[in-house]
């Protein structure tokens, strides 16, 4: 894999991703469209295949895919420094907005905000149930997967088991299942 032929100066990378970070609403799909529009169509720093490649490889890794795509593309533009600059610049606007909201929350978290928060929590419950469905449809493909999901649910909700231990143990089950197969 090679660094792209375009090597914009660090300051331009920072400015570009700062702007993208401030506009990056609406989750992975919307942000990918935004990145393609700005980096491929407008600035011509990268090509469409770079974005697809970034998504293909980072999807397999743990962690926030949005941020990983940005880090990957930053690396393509200017190596390790490019990746670090792009990621930091992309995260900065959201970090500052979130910090402002957290400060406001601490000031306001009183009886006034309580009913508001109850409505908000109920709405979040709705969104998270949808997320369970979407993540489940994508990641649970076998009876074993269903059993692991149910085991994790019961282990965490009723027995208060350590969540990290549950995930690691389940990952090891995945490895064991793979070891049972014939080598490809």
């Amino acid at each position, binding site marked *: 894999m090679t660094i792209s032929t375009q090597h914009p100066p660090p300051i331009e990378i920072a400015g570009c991703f700062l702007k993208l970070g401030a506009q990056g609403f609406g989750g992975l799909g919307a942000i990918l469209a935004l990145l393609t529009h700005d980096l491929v169509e407008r600035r011509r720093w990268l090509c469409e295949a770079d974005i697809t490649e970034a998504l293909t490889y980072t999807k397999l890794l743990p962690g*926030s895919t949005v941020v990983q795509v940005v880090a990957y593309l930053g690396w393509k533009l200017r190596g390790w420094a490019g990746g670090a600059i792009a990621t930091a610049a992309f995260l900065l606007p*959201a970090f500052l907005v979130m910090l402002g*909201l957290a400060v406001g929350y601490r000031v306001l978290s009183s009886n006034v905000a309580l009913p508001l928060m*109850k409505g908000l*929590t109920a709405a979040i419950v*709705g969104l998270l*149930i949808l997320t369970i469905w979407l993540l489940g449809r994508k990641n649970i493909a076998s009876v074993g997967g269903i059993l692991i999901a149910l085991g994790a649910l019961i282990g*965490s909700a009723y027995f208060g088991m350590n*969540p990290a231990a549950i995930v690691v143990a389940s990952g090891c089950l995945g490895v064991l*299942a793979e070891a049972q197969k014939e080598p490809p």
Partner: protein
Amino acid sequence: MIVQLFGQFFLISLLAFGGGQAALPLIERVSVAQMGWLSPAAFAVAVAFGYITPGPVLMTATFIGYVAAGLPGAIAATLGIFLAPTLLAMGVAAGIERFAQNRWLQAFGRGAAPAVVGLLGATVWSLIQGSVTSWQLAVVAILTLVLASKTAIAPGWLLLGGAIVGWVMGIWR
């Protein structure tokens, strides 16, 4: 506390197979149930803000860090949740892509991802117990679910709608 914030979020980020949302149940289990950094209701607010703000949903970590330990906490939690995945992504770009395609890493991910879905179920269950305390709030939850799955309305607006309903109900009493 600062070290713990960084350490826990660092660990969570490495276990979040399936993207940013896969980290949400781990964050809830660890920061609410295990460490007691914030209440279930405050966690819901953190996630709501994560959806509303630009950038990744995992900015939720910044909020939790701030509530737990002020500005240093916010910085520690944010670095913790994004550092390792960022380095991994750049490592893959730098040519160790075979690592991401490694048969055993993928098998580990295939086992871990369903567990994350199950943990998300536990998170939702604890939120329901703590916060969905009336039939009106249950209607808000169901309505949000239906609208989010059947229409293209952005989550931010649905959350705002839920907050307004809660606020109106508060005035009523």
